[in-house]
């Protein structure tokens, strides 16, 4: 499989994730967030992105990971979708990595939970593993 792609990487805790760089519109710092009561818990709220109202999905909650510490400033990774821009809230932003010649592997069978569905593949980077997420599934509401 020859994937000549660049991935925008970010972290949830120690785990490194990647999204196709072409699907990432921009990275912004934590924004004033408007909560949406009654919405699914993965929806953190709505942010105003230069006049556009964007839904923010907490990627930790989407992956069933424990919530980040209160004092930890989150980062919005704004992703293009067919339905307008959607923000994914992550802990920390990493580099854009070029993985043209990297070996790509299917996620291990033992991966469980929502990650099994969301993770498209794994890259073995020196010293760490990079989990590639499917952007459309990442911004979707579980169960829908």
């Amino acid at each position, binding site marked *: 499989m020859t994937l000549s792609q660049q991935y925008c990487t970010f972290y949830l805790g120690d785990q490194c994730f990647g999204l196709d760089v072409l699907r990432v519109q921009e990275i912004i710092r934590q924004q004033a967030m408007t909560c949406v009561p*009654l919405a699914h818990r993965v929806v953190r709220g709505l942010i105003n992105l230069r006049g556009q109202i964007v839904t923010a999905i907490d990627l930790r909650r989407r992956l069933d990971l424990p919530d980040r510490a209160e004092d930890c400033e989150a980062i919005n990774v704004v992703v293009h979708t067919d339905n307008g821009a959607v923000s994914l809230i992550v802990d920390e932003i990493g580099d854009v990595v070029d993985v043209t010649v990297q070996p790509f592997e299917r996620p291990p069978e033992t991966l469980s939970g929502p990650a099994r569905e969301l993770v498209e593949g794994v890259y073995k980077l020196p010293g760490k593993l990079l989990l590639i997420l499917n952007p459309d599934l990442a911004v979707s509401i579980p169960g829908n």
Partner: protein
Amino acid sequence: MSMNNEIVREFLLEAHENLSLLDSDLVILEERPTEKGTLAQVFRTLHSIKGTAGFIGLPKLQAVAHAGESLLSRLRDGELRFNRSIATALLQVVDAMRFMLASIEKSGNEGDGDYTSLIAELDRLRMTGGGEAAGSAAVPESPPPAAPAVPATLVLPPRAFGGVDFPRASEREASEMTMPLPAMPPLPAASAMPRETIQASPPAPPTVDEEPFEPRPTAVADTNIRVDVTLLDKLMTLVGELVLARNQIIRYSASYGDTGFQDAVQRLSLLTTELQESVMKTRMQPIGNVWNKFPRIVRDLAVGCQKKVRFEMEGQETELDKTLIEAIRDPLTHIVRNAVDHGIEPPDVRRERGKPEEGRLRMHAFHEGGKVIIEIQDDGGGIHVERVRERAIQNKIISPQEAALLSHAELLRLILLPGFSTAEKVTQFSGRGVGMDVVRTNIEKIGGTVDLESVEGQGTTIRTKIPLTLAIVPALMVSSAGQRYAIPQVSLVELVRVESEHASTAIESIQGAPVYRLRGNLLPLVDLNEQLGLAIAQRSDRDLNIVVLQAEDRQFGLVVDEIRDTEEIVVKPLQKQLKGLNTFAGATILGDGRVALILHVVGLAERAGVISGVKARSLVQHQTSGEQPADQGESYLIFSGTLGGQMALPLSQVARLEEIPRESMETVGGRQVVQYRGEILPLVDVSRQLDRLSLGSQTVEASARDRVAELPEVAQVVVCGGGNGPVGLVVGQILDVVHARVAGSTEWNRPGVLFTAVVQEKVTEFVDLQSLVR
């Protein structure tokens, strides 16, 4: 002509487009004479111009177009073959028409150009086909000596014309032939041979127009372009954002003392407002665009029903947003149909009633308070209120008890409920029962309202109020649990503030459900925090803010932490991730850049159980006459009698709960009555009446004076809708409202009691309202 200015303008716009189309099509035909499709299109285009020209009274234009069309029809039928001379002649037609259009636009008439020779040439071509008479192709009479005998020279290579574009060459030339020459801008390079042809060709310069004018481009065509509506939508959104940004700057500017800055802000503010208005205007269309088809509809309907109807329209120029124009088309059609079909009586009936045979139907649109009001008024039979009442009962929309309590206006509003139709016969046109409720739903969907007035025998007026635009709506901002929410103003009825010292007493509870007495009506209260699952603030020591909202037919009070101000908000839809939330209608960006959710009042009411989906639109969900409902149970009002004992009455029979002081009671003809809302309300003491019923006529009737004396200082009265009008039941105390499926026994019955059952660990008599008041 000034009267039809709008029509003429539209004709000009369309004709210019059509003429350009003809130009290119004719050139194609010239090259490929056998293209049937193109020929048919040319024919249609010319035909439509001719039709409209005839319609607005442009005889010359019509004559020229007609001659061209006749020629084309022979071509179309295959009797003639398209050739160059025909093409030239037809292009001359195009140019002649273009010239006339220019004149119409300029002076309002076709000009005094003479086109008889052109028409004669067209006729000649129609007869002969023009193929053989090559020399006379383009220049009907007296081909000039300098003119080449072969038509081919007419389409000389473009270079010869000094840079005139090639496909247009023959056309340009042709146009020059029929255009009045004096006014033509000189074409220096084209002054050679073709020029001579030109000079020779016009029969005589038809008009000598003093001013030089440009025949080709005309003002209407130049000042109108077709724009994609989505682009306008985008502009609208951007302007909305600009308005918000402006508001933000204004807020900041207040903290700066700099006058130069203040001036700049002021100017920005004015410009933004103007820009917003202009952009809004781009989406505005006169309501006449929808109304235009009504005269025909009315005529056809009137003929179909054998009625005479005079249709009047006023205020067609009233403008509103394009999307709204589309949205009101069907509801208005329905109302108009109703008016002709059911409203206006047949001529003989009208004569009997002393009205002119010809009925009058009037549509009137105007602006009022930032909304567009459309009134549809007929002078027909009006709505038979009693029939409405009967039909409502018959269709189980309301119970007879309730029907008795409704006022004239309330009864009229019943026809807006689903499944209602008072027409006595189903006609071809309407009366199938899907009527005004659809109108109402559609109008309410776009944030409008429907009202109706009717005087029996004199006619009906239906009034719809429609917002000017949907993109920007006025909204009330409230806050709850630290977040701000927008409530669209259309759902807002009033604001109520209960001072903290009264809050605990003013809010009563029926089986845990809080209610507030608002001018005698019980207003169910819904706590926004609770509904949204937010932290419930301790409100006991604070003033209570109640926003009274209208959700379909019901009103309810929304309790919020704080009521802020009203703002114009730009409505934005929620993304897919939040589509399932019925409680929010969208979101908006506030002046400070924060996002606020817009509450969906109907959804919220449904969530809180104030209304329940489909059933909600009928006033009462179940029909009751005392019998046990089949499955789902019913709500009962539980009270004690004046002489003790627990009793119950179906809540659906209860209209109101009142406290009536003894001094306001009067005794008339041995009965106690009270003046109640302008009517006389008979009072019945439930306990004593039951005693009397069970003891039969043997008892000596207590004197009326005694009976009044038996009552407490302030009587608790349950106002019920009886079969013969409302009646007040005097009870000891209102205890509760329970919702239950009651399986009672009739073993212990006494007259006036339907059955007995245990409610809240007490034996309770379920009283029969009918026999109590008989």
